[in-house]
């Protein structure tokens, strides 16, 4: 997507972030159930009127993804697509979406939640007198869930459906699980393990009761997350630590988003200095193309990148603990170079440097200086001097 084209699209399809954001955040199970019922009624009306029954959802190809320069997030455009029953290519998908609609309606009205894998298994069965299954692969039901999210303009967590949890939280933050005995706990008091982040982090479920911190530090690798706890980094620096364990799961992204917007905490992202790490950062900050529709609830456009950078390699003499980039890494880095949200001087410089030197640097490489170096010097110095990439 070229810069020009994206900008042009935006002027048409733009939505006011603050307003829609607030409305979307507010919607609870009842509102969502009502929306599903409304959609089902329209389909029934089509059938009674002898029209080919249909529902609308959004196109999800690259051509319908745009970068909202003003808000700094990736959005799904307004291009929509219609799925009808009387179309050989759509009929099965139509059937499957009806089943998913009916099932999520049931969850919402009976206050149950399910993982997307459970949705698949709940709905899988043989159709009538045939040998055909309603679903043969979880990817099919996943796709229907996405259709439904777009049709009624919400996120799956609000359909009481969620993906697998991943990620851990540590720091002086008190959470209340409003759906679970009102459990109240402080995440600084959990030893060195920390709290295991849930797959759904919606406000009506998990309340962020109190935060005593200056910023949120998001860490790519679990080992670095542990290292920083080990060094008592959170206490000494009044930081909230979030370990993503690779690409951040939806629940973790939702938590970062909420910490930033509800508690005005700056978010610093600390990843390996390689295309995968930069991509993790970009997803946390701007959202992803695949979930472009939900960036408003998941992205955190004001997040900053703290490291690793290739400047670190020079500054701290880490040359002999860099790794060679594989051809695939270089290809990926070149792709990132052309992304709209990396169109700024510091990132262009960083990416080009990586492509020229063909090297990458991992977080753990800092151990080459000493184990405590990262906690005692590297991070504090960077945060103090505001040495960030945008």
């Amino acid at each position: 997507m070229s810069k020009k084209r994206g900008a042009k699209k935006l002027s048409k399809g733009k939505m006011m972030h603050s307003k829609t954001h607030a409305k979307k955040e507010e919607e609870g199970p009842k509102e969502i159930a009502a929306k599903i019922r409304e959609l089902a009624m329209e389909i029934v009306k089509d059938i009674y009127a002898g029209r080919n029954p249909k529902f609308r959802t959004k196109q999800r190809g690259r051509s319908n993804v745009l970068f909202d320069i003003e808000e700094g997030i990736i959005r799904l455009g307004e291009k929509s697509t219609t799925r009808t029953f009387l179309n050989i290519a759509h009929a099965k998908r139509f059937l499957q979406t009806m089943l998913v609609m009916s099932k999520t309606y049931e969850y919402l009205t009976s206050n149950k939640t399910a993982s997307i894998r459970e949705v698949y298994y709940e709905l899988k069965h043989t159709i009538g007198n045939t040998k055909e299954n309603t679903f043969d692969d979880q990817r099919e039901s996943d796709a229907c869930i996405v259709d439904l999210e777009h049709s009624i303009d919400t996120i799956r967590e609000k359909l009481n459906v969620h993906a697998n949890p991943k990620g851990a939280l540590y720091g002086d933050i008190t959470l209340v699980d409003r759906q679970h005995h009102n459990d109240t706990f402080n995440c600084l008091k959990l030893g060195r393990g920390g709290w295991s982040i849930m797959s759904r982090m919606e406000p009506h479920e998990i309340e962020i009761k109190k935060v005593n911190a200056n910023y949120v530090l998001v860490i790519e690798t679990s080992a670095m997350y542990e290292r920083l706890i080990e060094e008592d980094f959170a206490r000494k620096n009044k930081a909230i630590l979030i370990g993503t364990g690779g690409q951040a799961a939806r629940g973790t992204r939702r938590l970062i988003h909420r910490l930033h917007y509800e508690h005005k905490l700056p978010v610093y992202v600390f990843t390996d200095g390689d295309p995968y790490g930069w991509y993790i950062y970009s997803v946390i900050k701007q959202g992803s193309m695949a979930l472009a529709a939900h960036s408003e609830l998941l992205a955190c456009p004001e997040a900053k990148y703290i490291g690793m950078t290739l400047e670190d390699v020079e500054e701290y003499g880490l040359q002999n603990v860099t790794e060679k980039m594989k051809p695939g890494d270089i290809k990926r880095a070149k792709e990132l170079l052309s992304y709209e949200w990396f169109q700024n001087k510091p990132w262009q410089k960083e990416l080009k440097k990586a492509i020229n030197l063909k090297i990458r640097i991992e977080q753990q490489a800092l151990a080459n200086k000493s184990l405590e170096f990262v906690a005692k010097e590297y991070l504090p110095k960077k945060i103090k001097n505001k040495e960030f990439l945008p």
Partner: protein
Amino acid sequence: MEEERKKEIVTGEKLAKEFREHSVAEFFKKNRQMLGLYGKVRTLTTIVHEYVTNSLDACEEAGILPEIEVRIDELGPEYYQVTVKDNGPGLTKETIGKALGKLLAGTKFHRLIQSRGQQGIGASGCTMLCQMTTGKAVRVITGTGKGKPFACEITIDPKRNEPKIENFRELNRKFRGLMIQARFKGVLYRESATGPLEYLRRTAIANPHAKIIFRSPKGEKIVFNRTSAYIPKPPKPMKPHPAGVIVDDIITMAHHTKAKKVSSFLKNDFQRIGDSVLEQIQKLVSFDLNKDPKKLTWKEAEEIAKAFKKIKFLAPSTDGLSPIGEERIRKSLESIVQPEYVVTLTRPAKVYAGGYPFQVEIGIAYGGKAGITSENNRSQEEESAKVEIMRFANRAPLLFDAGNCAITKAVHSIDWKRYGVKDLENTPLTIFVNFISVHVPYTGAGKQAIADEEEIMEELRLALMACARKTARYISAKRAAIEKKMKRDMFYKYIPEIAGALSKITKENKEKLEKKLQELVVAKLKMEKANEILEKVQATTQAKEKSSKDEDLGEEDE
């Protein structure tokens, strides 16, 4: 380090005494692989080929509807007797020896004429193999229809390349035709894709006017009946076409012509040269065309050849070519291959490098028993049908060296996907290709592969593509019909699920929703009926492509 040795100078004079000529028979006896007579299975097939093509050629020239009986008996391990009997014109006392007992003697070599055999070494080569491996003579009974038929035994004296005829005796019964019986050791009968049975099956397909009866060593009798009573025109000898003739040809012909002037030599001895062409030639050469052709020099002949290259001639006469014909190929394939659908094509004649006209005939048989597995003894699973490429040169099947052959190369050079054939190798197709010419450019004396001359390749490709287009139309129409039925079934099948889901959310009556949805499907399919089936299929395919394109981004975190 070098040893010293007394040298005895052998003089040129001494060597001269050693010089000796040897016969072509000795040569081929030492080099039987050049005649295709190698490999245990291949040798037996080649023997059957040599005899059967001779019979077919003879019948054709004599205007007789051929009936040929082939019998193979197993006499011992790797020891077989082959008997071929035809109802052709037969041979005379004078010719029988040359036909079967002398190499490079025959009726065809010196003429530009379409025939299956060509070089006059096939049948005599079999005689040689018979005596080389068993010490036995070839036994013959023949009659021309006039006078008494006779029997005899023939061998070759390889040192002289001359026939030896023994046990000659006249017979007191009526017989017209030729029966040959010969024994061979070191050969093997197999019912494989390169065995005699497959050879005869293909011969029958390309010669619908022939009745062929085969008795296998297992005692089975297989009859390929004729599907046409039309005897192909006896091919006529042709004059060479000027396009592509080389200097040496012109010189050779000029020295043998009966014409007194170069001008009349050109007009009489070549095709497509009339007065206006002659005038053009005269303008292009530096000498007078009234010259005696016997005195034509190489340089002058070279000028003529150059002139030939500059002048645009009419396409060569096809008088010498005898195609099978589209309708007869169709009938033959329907009868013997039993496919679901057949398309055939006989292309107009063209010329390749040597000034030789040629013509291409194609038949594509689809579905049913087409492809490999139908007639052959393999497993009958529908799914495993494979493409079968049947190559013919002047109606004679080519079973070996497929990889080297222009026909195979042409078939594989075509982008079959464009014609609805996704995986050529695993499609129930029989592709029949008959290449006919007054001089087939074989890649070797085994006569099993056609050289991939540029003009031949182009012609083969054009013909194949024309047939493939028609086949593609049939295949997609068939697919469309199947899909229509599938569509209705599918829509109906999904209705209860959809009605159930909607009913759960909206509390509307499930049975009512089902009934309404069924009405919708019926209305939809009626409307479609009005449209052309083929269009629908294409639209569906496009819709599928589009919708799948829409969703090519996966979610990265689940």
